[in-house]
C-alpha cells in the first residue's frame, strides 16, 4: 500500500497551534506512508493539485487528509481522488481542527493527540475498499406541510414551475397566523390585501392539490422517493359543491358562544363556521364535537335545509390518502408561548391583559371588535406593551423570538392610530435589525413612550390606599424598574398587551418523529448547517418559515422560496446520488431473526425468503447508513460499508 498524508495548516487554525513540522516528521515514520506534505490551505486549488500530482507520480493508492471536519471538505477531496482515477472512498479525513487544535489548551499534548488521529486515519484507510455511488430517480412531486405564508409561497413557486404539489394544512383554512394580522411591519401594508391573493392563487393553481383539515400521519422512504399518508378529516361540507354563501352558518340555531381559535378566543362562533370571510377553501366547516346533530341527534338541521348546493354532508368520514413525492417542504410555522405560565403577569386572571395576537384580532376589521380596541367595553386610556414575554428567559424560552420588538412597535403604532391612549412599550433590548426596521422604530418613538426595563409583575392590588383610589375600576398596575433612570415604578394601565415568545407549533415533535428528522434544543427543526444550508433538514426534506426558528414574514417567504428552489432543483435533475456507505447483509451468517427490522429508523429492512431460507434484506436506496442494524445484529451478519469491523478495529487499535 502506498499512502499519502496531507496536512493542512488551515491558516492559523491548525498551524497556529499544532507543531506541523513535528506532525510531518511523525507521519513520515508511519508504515506504508510514502509521502507527507503540508500546505496552508489543502482545500484550495493548489492544495488539491498537490494530491492529484502525487497520486499520478507516486502511484498512491490511499490518501489521508489531516484537516478540518469531514463535514466540510470530504466531498472536495473525494472528487480529487476520483478525478485522479482513484476510487473516491480510498480517502480518510483526519480531523485535527474541530477535534484537536480548536479545543485544547496545551499545545504539546494537542500535537501528540493530532499524531494519533493521523495514525488512526492511516491505519483505517488501508482497510478501505472501493465503493460505487448509486443513483435513484426522483419522483417529480412535492409535499408541502403547512399552509401559512411560508407553505403558500413554497407551493406557489413549485407549482408555477409545473411541478405538482400536495399542500397539507391542519386547520380548515390556509393563511396561517398571517391571516390574523391587521397590518404588517415595517411597511404597514394590510396583511389581508397581500395575503389573500396568494391564497386564492393556491386554490386556483391546478398543480396544487390542497388538503385542509388534514394531517400527515406517516412518511416512508427516503430522498426522491417518499411515500406519504395524509389523514383528511371530514368537514361535513362538500368543498367542491359549496359556493361559500354562508347561508348554512346563518341558519344554525346555535348562538355564537364557542371561543374562536382563529380569533384567539376573544371572538365567538357557532359549531358551523368559517374562520374568516376570505378563508380558503371558502367553505364552512362543522365541528362534530360541538354540533347538536352529532351530540344529540335532535337537531332540526336548518343548515341542510338552506343549502341550495346540497353541500352539507353529515355522512362524510375521515379518510387516509396516500401520495408519493420526491421532496418534502416543512412549513408548520409557530404558535405563541402561553403567557399564563408566567403567573406574575396575570394573563388569564386579569381581563385587561391580552396577548399580541388577540390584539391583532381586535385591530383587524374582520375580527370580533370590528377593528376597535376595547377593554371592558371602553377604549383604553393607557396601554402597556410588554416585550419579551417568555423570550430570552431561562425559566421559559431562552431564545430571542426575533419579531416581538417589531410587532410590539407596530401594535403601539396601530393603537396610537386608532385610539387616544397613552402607549408604553417595555423592552429589554430593542432589536430592529431588518431593512427599514430602524426607520420604523424611529418613527414610532415619536408617538409612544418606550421604557427600558422588563416588567416584573402585573397586579391589580395597589401598594397603598392612595394608589387604590387612582387605579380603581379595572385597571392593572405594571411594576418595573426603568433601568435607565434607576427607578422602580408602578403605573396603572387599562390594557396590557403581552408580546409572547414564538414557539414551534403543536405537533412539531410528532412530525419530526414521522419524518425522522431532529429538532434543535428549542424544538424547532434543526437545519443541516445554520449558515450554509439553513433550509435543509435532511436529504430531500426542507424547512422554511417559523418551523425552523422565529422569523418575520419577509424572511419566511424568502426561506420558503429557497426551500422550493431546492426541491425544484432536485426534481429538475431527475435523480439523486446515494452514498454507498450503506449496510448490507451477509446472507451466510444471517439467521433471519428479524432483530434488525424494528430498529431501522428508515424502514429499510424486511425479512424475506431467499432460497427457502429466511433472511434480512436491506433496501439500500432507503438505507441512510446510520449503522443501528449492524450494531443490533446478534450474528454480526449485517455489515456496513466503509465501517467494516476490521476497519474500525484497525482504527481503534492504532489509537491505543
Amino acid at each position, binding site marked *: 500500500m502506498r499512502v499519502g498524508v496531507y496536512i493542512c495548516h488551515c491558516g492559523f487554525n491548525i498551524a497556529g497551534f499544532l507543531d506541523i513540522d513535528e506532525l510531518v516528521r511523525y507521519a513520515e515514520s508511519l508504515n506504508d506512508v510514502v509521502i507527507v506534505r503540508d500546505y496552508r490551505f489543502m482545500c484550495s486549488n493548489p492544495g488539491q493539485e498537490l494530491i492529484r500530482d502525487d497520486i499520478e507520480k507516486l502511484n498512491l493508492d490511499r490518501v489521508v487528509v489531516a484537516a478540518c471536519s469531514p463535514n466540510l471538505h470530504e466531498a472536495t477531496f473525494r472528487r480529487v481522488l476520483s478525478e485522479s482515477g482513484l476510487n473516491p472512498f480510498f480517502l480518510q479525513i483526519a480531523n485535527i481542527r474541530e477535534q484537536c487544535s480548536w479545543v485544547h489548551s496545551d499545545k504539546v499534548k494537542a500535537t501528540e493527540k493530532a499524531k494519533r488521529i493521523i495514525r488512526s486515519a492511516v491505519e483505517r484507510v488501508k482497510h478501505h475498499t472501493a465503493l460505487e455511488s448509486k443513483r435513484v430517480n426522483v419522483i417529480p412531486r412535492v409535499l408541502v406541510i403547512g399552509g401559512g405564508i411560508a407553505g403558500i409561497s413554497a407551493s406557489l413557486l413549485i407549482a408555477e414551475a409545473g411541478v405538482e404539489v400536495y399542500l397539507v394544512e391542519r386547520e380548515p383554512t390556509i393563511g396561517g397566523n398571517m391571516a390574523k394580522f391587521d397590518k404588517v411591519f415595517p411597511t404597514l401594508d394590510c396583511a389581508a390585501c397581500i395575503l389573500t391573493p396568494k391564497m386564492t392563487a393556491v386554490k386556483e393553481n391546478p398543480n396544487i392539490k390542497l388538503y385542509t383539515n388534514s394531517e400527515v400521519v406517516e412518511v416512508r422512504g427516503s430522498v426522491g422517493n417518499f411515500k406519504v399518508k395524509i389523514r383528511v378529516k371530514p368537514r361535513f361540507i362538500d368543498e367542491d359543491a359549496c359556493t361559500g354563501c354562508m347561508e348554512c352558518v346563518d341558519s344554525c340555531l346555535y348562538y355564537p358562544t364557542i371561543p374562536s381559535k382563529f380569533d384567539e378566543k376573544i371572538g365567538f362562533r357557532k359549531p358551523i363556521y368559517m374562520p374568516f370571510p376570505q378563508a380558503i377553501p371558502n367553505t364552512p366547516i362543522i365541528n362534530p364535537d360541538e354540533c347538536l346533530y352529532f351530540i344529540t341527534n335532535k337537531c332540526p338541521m336548518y343548515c341542510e335545509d338552506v343549502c341550495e348546493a346540497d353541500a352539507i354532508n353529515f355522512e362524510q368520514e375521515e379518510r387516509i390518502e396516500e401520495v408519493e413525492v420526491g421532496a418534502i417542504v416543512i412549513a408548520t410555522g409557530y404558535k405563541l408561548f402561553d403567557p399564563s405560565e408566567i403567573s406574575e403577569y396575570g394573563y388569564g386572571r386579569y381581563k385587561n391583559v391580552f396577548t399580541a395576537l388577540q390584539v391583532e384580532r381586535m385591530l383587524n376589521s374582520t375580527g370580533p371588535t370590528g377593528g376597535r380596541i376595547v377593554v371592558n367595553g371602553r377604549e383604553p386610556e393607557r396601554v402597556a406593551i410588554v416585550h419579551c414575554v417568555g423570550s430570552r428567559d*431561562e425559566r421559559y424560552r431562552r431564545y430571542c423570538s426575533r419579531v416581538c420588538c417589531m410587532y410590539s412597535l407596530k401594535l403601539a403604532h396601530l393603537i396610537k392610530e386608532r385610539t387616544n391612549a397613552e402607549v408604553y412599550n417595555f423592552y*429589554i433590548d430593542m432589536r430592529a435589525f431588518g431593512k427599514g426596521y430602524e426607520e420604523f422604530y424611529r418613527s414610532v418613538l415619536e408617538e409612544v413612550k418606550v421604557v427600558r426595563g*422588563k416588567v*416584573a*409583575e402585573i397586579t391589580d392590588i395597589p401598594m397603598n390606599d392612595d394608589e387604590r383610589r387612582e387605579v380603581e375600576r379595572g385597571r392593572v398596575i405594571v411594576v418595573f424598574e426603568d*433601568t435607565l433612570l434607576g427607578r*422602580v415604578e408602578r403605573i396603572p394601565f387599562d390594557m396590557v398587551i403581552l408580546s409572547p415568545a414564538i414557539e414551534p407549533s403543536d405537533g412539531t415533535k410528532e412530525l419530526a418523529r414521522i419524518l425522522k428528522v431532529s429538532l434543535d434544543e428549542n424544538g424547532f427543526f434543526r437545519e443541516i448547517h445554520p449558515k450554509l444550508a439553513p433550509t435543509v433538514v435532511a436529504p430531500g426534506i426542507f424547512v422554511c418559515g417559523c418551523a425552523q426558528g422565529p422569523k418575520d414574514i419577509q424572511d419566511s417567504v424568502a426561506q420558503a422560496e429557497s426551500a422550493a428552489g431546492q426541491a425544484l432543483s432536485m426534481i429538475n435533475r431527475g435523480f439523486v446520488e446515494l452514498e454507498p456507505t450503506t449496510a448490507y447483509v451477509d446472507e451466510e451468517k444471517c439467521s433471519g431473526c428479524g432483530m434488525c427490522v424494528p430498529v431501522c429508523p428508515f424502514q429499510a429492512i424486511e425479512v424475506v425468503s431467499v432460497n427457502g431460507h429466511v433472511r434480512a434484506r436491506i433496501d439500500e436506496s432507503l438505507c441512510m447508513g446510520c449503522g443501528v442494524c449492524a450494531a443490533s445484529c446478534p450474528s454480526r451478519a449485517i455489515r456496513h460499508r466503509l465501517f467494516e469491523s476490521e476497519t474500525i478495529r484497525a482504527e481503534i487499535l492504532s489509537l491505543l
Partner: protein
Amino acid sequence: MVEVLSESYQNKFGYEGLTRCYQCGNCTAICPVSDGRFPRRLIAHLRWGRIERFDEVWLCLQCKLCDEFCPRDTNPSLAMQTLKRISVENGSVPPHIGEFLMNVYRRRNPWGHSRMKRGEWMKDLNVPTVKDCEFDWLWFVGCANSFDSRVLGVTEKIARILNELEISYAVLGRDEGCCGNDVKRIGEDGLFELLMEENFKVFKRYGVERIITHSPHCYNTFKNDYNIEVKLFLELLHDFINDGSVELKHEFKKVVTYHDSCFLGRYNNIYELPREILRSVPGLKLVEMRSNRRTSICCGGGAGNIAVGYQGKVQPSILRVKEALDVNADVLAVACPFCKIMLEEASKSVNCNLKVLDVVDIVYHSMYGEGL
C-alpha cells in the same frame, strides 16, 4: 468612591451568573426593599469589577425573591452574597451586622445572650438531653426558639408534642451552638466554617445522626450546607396528623393566611406542607395573600437582620402584614421563629388586630383546645 475588584476577586468568589445578566431590572422591580436600583446596579458594577456603593448590598435579605423572577438565572441574591463576602473579607460590615456576627462568634446566638442560658427554656418541661438518654433524633432547637420570649411558647409546645408522641429525641441544651445559616448568607464563611466544625464535633460526641428542627434556617443549612439528615418538625407533625396519631379535635374558627418562610419556600421548595397541616385543622379557613409561595415576600429577619431588626427604609414585615390585612385574615400563620418575631412586631406597628401564630400554635390549640 469606586472600589475596583481585581479579577482574582471575581474568580476567587466564583460567582458565575454575572455575564448572563442583561440588566432588565426585574430584580429591582420585584425587590420589596429596593431603593430603586438595587440590586441591578450592583450587579452591573460587579460585572465591571468596580463597586460604587458597597454598603448598598446590606439591603439584601438573601430572600431569593429576585432569583425567582430573574429571567437569566443570574441569581442576584448569590451576587449579593458574594459582595457581602467581599465586604466581610475587607472588614467593612455595617454595625448591626457586625454586632450580629460578634454575638454569634462570642455567644453562638444573634442577640448575644448568655450561652449558659441556652437551655433555660426547658426547666420545667421534662426534656431529655443528649447526656442523659439514648435517642434517635436530635432536636436542634435553634437560637430564636431557645431565647426569644416571642417564640418560647412555640418551643414549649413542640416539647410537649414530642413528649406526648413518645418520639425518641434529645436536645443538646447548653452544648447547642448556632447552625450558622444566616452567617453563611452574610458571607462570613470563616465563621460559618468554625460553627460547622464545632457542631459536627458536638454531633459526633453525642452520636447524633439525624436532626429534627423547627427553624427553617437551621433546616436549610443542615440540609444544604452540612448535608446531614434533617427533618422539619412540621414534617413529623404532618405524618402524625395523617396517620391519626395526632388528633385535631378542637375547632379553630379563624381566617388564616400562611406566610412562606424564605428558607422553607424558595430555598427548599416546601410550600404545601404547612398549608396541608393548616387545612387539616377543623374550622380553619385558609386564604392566600397577594404574594404567596414562590413570590412570597420576606419577613425582614434573614441574613443577620434578626438581631436588631431590618435597617432599610422599607420594612418588608409591614408590607407583609398589610397583605394579610388585605385578604381579611384574622391570623397570619408562620412556620419560622424569625418570621414570627418580625411579623408580630410589624402587626403591632400597623396597629391592627392581626394575630401572628406559628403553625405549631394552631395545631397545638386544635389538639388540646388551649395554648392561645
